[in-house]
């Protein structure tokens, strides 16, 4: 007697509740950072050798900016002064802006603490700190894919924004004025006590330079 296997949804529906199957999650751990959930915690060392952790800023809004100074998209926002202006505005409002240099050693954008400080001076940047993250731990915790990839963590430690710096994905400086500055708008909405209208946007930029052997 031969068997016949005909899988029919109609038949399986009734018994689906009985199927307590082990669900195997394939592939790599993904998207640990979800908007509306607690932001992944991290501890890192900044360019001045100081330990920086997300937890120590509980009670304050924290902005994370992944960076790679040789990336044309990062350069776009620094050459135009857009990034520095937003950093200064944030500082004035008591918001903690952390720039994260997560390029692996040997990769574009990998900097020593000294180089990071020189870049800050040269570009007139004003982050609260530049995190030196050559093992890409912070970037990995947030599943960052590009530079600049932007995140906002609210005073309670909840991730409230992730995505791009603005809405026009080009390397053209002229587009900054025309683009919606997502991070700036989100911070304004938070200050006004409003929900963030665009809390997850498409980031654009250079691929984040994780180490070659990382996966």
């Amino acid at each position, binding site marked *: 007697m031969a068997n016949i296997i005909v899988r029919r949804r109609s038949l399986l529906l009734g018994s689906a509740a009985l199927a307590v199957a082990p669900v195997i999650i394939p592939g790599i751990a993904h998207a640990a950072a979800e908007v509306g959930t607690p932001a992944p915690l991290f501890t890192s060392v900044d360019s001045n050798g100081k330990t920086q952790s997300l937890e120590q800023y509980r009670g304050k809004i924290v902005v994370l900016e992944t960076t790679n100074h*040789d990336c044309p998209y990062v350069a776009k926002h620094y050459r135009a002064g857009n990034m520095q202006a937003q950093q200064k505005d944030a500082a004035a409002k008591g918001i903690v802006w952390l720039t994260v240099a997560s390029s692996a050693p040997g990769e574009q954008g990998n900097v020593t603490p000294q180089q990071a400080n020189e870049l800050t001076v040269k570009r007139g940047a004003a982050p609260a700190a530049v995190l030196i993250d050559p093992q890409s731990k912070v970037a990995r915790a947030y599943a960052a894919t590009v530079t600049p990839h932007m995140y906002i963590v609210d005073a309670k430690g909840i991730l409230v924004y992730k995505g791009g710096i603005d809405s026009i994905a080009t390397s053209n400086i002229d587009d900054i004025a025309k683009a919606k500055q997502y991070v700036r708008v989100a911070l304004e909405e938070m200050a006004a006590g409003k929900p963030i209208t665009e809390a997850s946007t*498409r980031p654009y930029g250079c*691929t984040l330079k*994780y180490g070659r052997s990382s996966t």
Partner: protein
Amino acid sequence: MRRFLTLLAVLLAGFGLASTAHAQSVVKTDNVRAELVSEVSTVKPGEPFWVALRQTIRPKWHTYWKNPGDSGLPTEIKWTLPAGAKADAIVWPAPHVIDVGGVINYGFSDDVMLLVRITLPADLPIGGTLPLTAQAEWLVCDDVCIPEEGKFTLDLPVAATAQPANAETRAMFDKARRAVPVPSPWPARFAVAANGDPVLAIDAKGLKPDTIRDVYFFPAEWGTAAHMAKQSAKVSADGIRIPLKKGETKGAPPPQLLGTLVLTEKTADGEHRQAFDLAAKLDPALATSVMNNSEESSLSLAEALLFALLGGLILNLMPCVFPVLAMKAASFARLAGHSRGELRRDGLAYSAGVLVSFALMAAALLAIRGSVGEVNWGIQFQSPIFSLLIAYLFFAVGLNLSGVFEIGGRFAGLGQGLAARGGTAGAFFTGVLAVVVATPCTAPFMAAALGFALVQPAPQTVAVLLAMGLGLALPYLLLTLTPALQRFLPRPGAWMDRLRQLLAFPMYASAVWMIWVLTLQTGADGVLYALGGMVLIAFAAWLVRVGGASSTGLWLRRGAAAAAVLLAIAATLKLENPSATAASASGGPANGVSFEGWERFSRARLAEAVAQGKPVFVDFTAAWCITCLVNERVALETAKTRQAFEQAGVVKLKGDWTNRDPEITATLKEAGRAGVPLYLWWPAGADKPKILPQILTEAMIVSEITAKR
């Protein structure tokens, strides 16, 4: 050093930009040589034509698809055209996955053609020129990314006819079109699981899992699915299922999930990458069946045995087996007065019947595996004959339960023949009957266990199947072995007869369901044979009953009844004839091979046409052959090719190898092939065919047909 190189690259890129100041169709940067090419050398007013931005990319570097993935940007082209002319959006070739340290991008390496259709106004003055100006921007990356751009101009003379470009350019366009995804021939659905992860189902029936690999779904838009997650597609005879991870876009799922499905098919002489554009419709019902599929992951033997046991237990609740169980319960109630020993014997005999049936099934499975080398449930067991016989069996049991006929008139029970004999043999055959009617039902867990059993060495296969049988037999076995449980059974009475009549209806419902399954396998004709056969069976049942015990004409009636049953069974043989099945299959090419516009291949017809000196084109195909399907869509069934075939008076023969036709197999062998696709072309008067490549393009076919000999 790296930084110096980067700087150099940026400088050179800058130099590349600077050099685009004057009009040209080629732009060279340090990383990309880009060229605007046209498929025609002169344009005709009012007639659309194709151009392409061709990027020759530095080795190891890449540019991006319309959805670039986790990072990157797609190439963009802005056109400046004369009034009335219009450039459509880029027609993208199927992308590749590019993994940069775990960040997944979708794009192109080495060489890519971005096709754009230009439409022209009808009032362009002939003798003038059409200036095409394109400003293109692209991002090119290795481990560093460089945005580049170029300005391209191409002046095309306007003439009364559109002159094709040189052969090399035309071949380039031909190849580019081949890389563009074709619309999916299969419907696709998607659903979102409770955890937000989408799952995609492509209802491609009859695919052969072992010939397909590297299945990947490229979402058309950012945010609909996570790019970074690895995709592990499952291919079965039912189709392709791809569990995805949720993307960044929030809110309710869209009504459609758009994207491109790419897979590699192994054919008799090579591997071919095929791409299909999908628009998957939201189908919430899909989510509930996802669970059953996700358990097909690798199991250990212990897990497989456990699942098999559970599957067998649950099988008792499935609609197919329920009537048998109820039947068993009724006969059990009759046994209530008997001794415990008898009860125990009855339970053990029933279990033995179930287990022996499963053992036989395992033996059949191993035998098939031994002879064919692999077991494919989909093809071996989705036989329309089997479906119809099972439908007949359900129907006959239903008639019996309804009281239309009693076999031999002396069986008071619900059982069939031997099954109702009441003794040990009866119990044994009730077990066999339970397995027979259970087979069309797949309980949860069973799929996973069966999937495991199929690929394991013989002892494990047998063990898993026996565990399943044990699961099926267990409830009744426990009942007979545990006197305490027996007290809960109701007393025998008139209710048994009513119950029996009631139970006929699930049997009829099961028969209806099997006929529905049959229609999927054979199309509308199957219904005719099935219902006709059932009328014959009902007639036979009536004949047997009429006159009761009287012997007048008994043998005549029995003879007529037997003839009716034989005729009904003969109807099943009609189903195996592929010309009766494939041609009537509903739903067109998605469910089988379409013969519209083609003659059915036979060696006699081929010999005849060749002898007459006619040009002959033979297409050997199969419903499960994806490459065949794509060739038909892009090369054989296009308007141009059809016209060329018609004008040249070509005899078009199609051989359907879906069911391994020996005549076709012989022809394939003669051509030195072990499988499809195979395309043979006899130009008029030729005595030997030309074997065409496995990958066809429209231009290739048209030029073969129109070539002068």
